[in-house]
């Protein structure tokens, strides 16, 4: 039995569409800039920490999975369970943030900046921009988790949970494109 509306508050979906648009254009700018600088991009891509990127992909996917479990929990009125799953999702978000900071730190220590070359400009811009959205998503999820714990949601009313969940899945979706594109494809 299909539902009529997108999950959560519709306004977040406008926001999600806007974010997807920005990232989409950024990805395409990367791809077409690469077309004009193939050797440069191929070479410096090799200097990226692919292990970190791959682990982070699994981290985000798992985090999203936990959020799905959280939404399923509240749909069955299990508010505490919902809060716990979101808590774990946020924790994994924290792991992503930590690994990313290590990555940025390493590049910074090597003297790499936005002005080093076009590849690094895109790598740093894209991943930093995404990083900011991970942080924002974590804030949103934390608020949802606290409210869930306090009993603000139920099986009948849990729009907030679905809203926060949708945003987090968008963050995951963007990374799913970003990782292969920037770290692997050549």
């Amino acid at each position, binding site marked *: 039995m299909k539902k009529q509306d997108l999950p959560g508050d519709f306004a977040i979906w*406008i926001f999600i569409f*806007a974010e997807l648009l*920005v990232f989409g*254009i950024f990805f395409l700018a990367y791809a077409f800039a690469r077309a004009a600088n193939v050797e440069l991009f191929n070479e410096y891509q090799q200097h990226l920490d692919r292990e970190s990127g791959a682990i982070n992909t699994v981290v985000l996917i798992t985090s999203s999975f936990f959020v799905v479990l959280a939404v399923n929990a509240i749909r069955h009125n299990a508010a505490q369970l919902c809060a716990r799953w979101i808590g774990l999702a946020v924790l994994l978000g924290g792991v992503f943030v930590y690994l990313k900071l290590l990555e940025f730190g390493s590049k910074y220590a090597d003297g790499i900046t936005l002005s080093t070359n076009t590849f690094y*400009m895109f790598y740093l*811009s894209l991943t930093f921009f995404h990083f900011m959205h991970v942080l924002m998503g974590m804030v949103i999820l934390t608020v949802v988790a606290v409210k869930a714990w306090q009993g603000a949601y139920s099986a009948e009313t849990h729009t907030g949970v679905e809203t926060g969940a949708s945003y987090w899945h968008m963050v995951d979706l963007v990374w799913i494109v970003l990782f292969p594109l920037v770290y692997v494809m050549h």
Partner: protein
Amino acid sequence: MKYQSQAVAKPYFIAAIGLFVGQILFGLILGMQYVWGDFMFPEIPFNVARMVHTNLLIVWLLFGFMGAAYYLVPEEAERELQSPFLAWALFWIFLIAGALTVLGYLLVPYAQLADITMNDLLPTMGREFLEQPTITKVGIVIVALGFLYNIGVTILAGRKTVVSLVLLTGLVGLAVFFLFAFYNPTNVVDDKYYWWWVVHLWVEGVWELIMGAILAYVLIKVTGVDREVIEKWLYVIIAMTLITGIIGTGHHYYWIGTPDYWQWWGSIFSAMEPIPFFMMTVFAFNMVNRRRREHPNKATVLWALGTAVMAFLGAGVWGFLHTLAPINYYTHGSQVTAAHGHMAFYGAYVMIVLTIISYAMPILRGQEASDPRSQVLEMWSFWLMTVSMVFITLFLTGAGVLQVWLQRYTEDPQPFMVVQEKIEMFYWLRELAGAVFLIGLIVYVISFFVKGGERVTIGSSDTA
């Protein structure tokens, strides 16, 4: 008029229109000087006329925004304005300071004006749009603080609505970013970098919040559509404004000596700046289509819809045409820029002020809407001004494209003045369109003094 203190909006609106007329007269002088360089020289040289034209624009729009706030805030907050006396006092201070500044530009050589006003104590003069003496700028800050206090307390002590909070945020932002007018770095790159924190973050940032809030307010009043629907749209629109416009500032950082990555960031984000304007257009038409009442003020509905469309075209489309770095490389600082600037300012900000005046002035004068004959004239003025502005823009676009081609893009680029001669025809046509614009403005002013005509109400126009 539900609250007595809304009446303070009236002098602000009158001043706005008066200064608007002044702005256009100087615009026509400038347009003439493009084709007849010595016109009014040496009494009013080009650079002086330009300062007067641009400064008057900003000042009358500010009067308009303040009038709009004084009108709509008491109604939204469901309480009288905190201090009508303060509003009146600030009105006279702002008007007199503005008048003195313009007189200063006209009567005194600029360097002398700087001396007289003790610019060297805290130098802020000499930058485009920010030519005002430092003491005038300080005056503006004082007026702004007084205004924000007045409006802020009224809102915060009363009913808070999305409309009033967005408006307040925009107005606070306007004041905060104006402070960067006082920051005058010696380094030329920094100077330009921060100048845009006033200009861009005003017109492609906080002013859009002000415009969105006023548009939402007018649509609530004239369509009767549920406040919640309209307010949700407003949230989405301002979110898109901020998402695209903040980093979109980078489209002014392509060639001024900042790092190259701005060419990417500025292009990517500013390319999306038309989106909020597109949304405003869909929003406005949608709300009018879903209206629950036939408001007797037809002119206002026309202005509201027209604002959204012209803002989208002028700010959105024309902005997009020259926002990408590879294009801007050629068009930077050309007549293409002027074309965009005129239609954008008119479409977004001139028109939103005229929209709120259209809605509020009759009520301030004791009627729900003006007499039909007045509205007809007002609607004529809408079409005259809007269509002539479209032509001004088209002619300047033509001039700009030809200019860019001949002066920059061809194999054999021609010098500036040689090219100016070749595009002269466009300037004549622009001036002609400008004259029609003035006619439209005169008709607009006349509409306030016309009465009569038969009101026909098909179906009831009672409150829903």
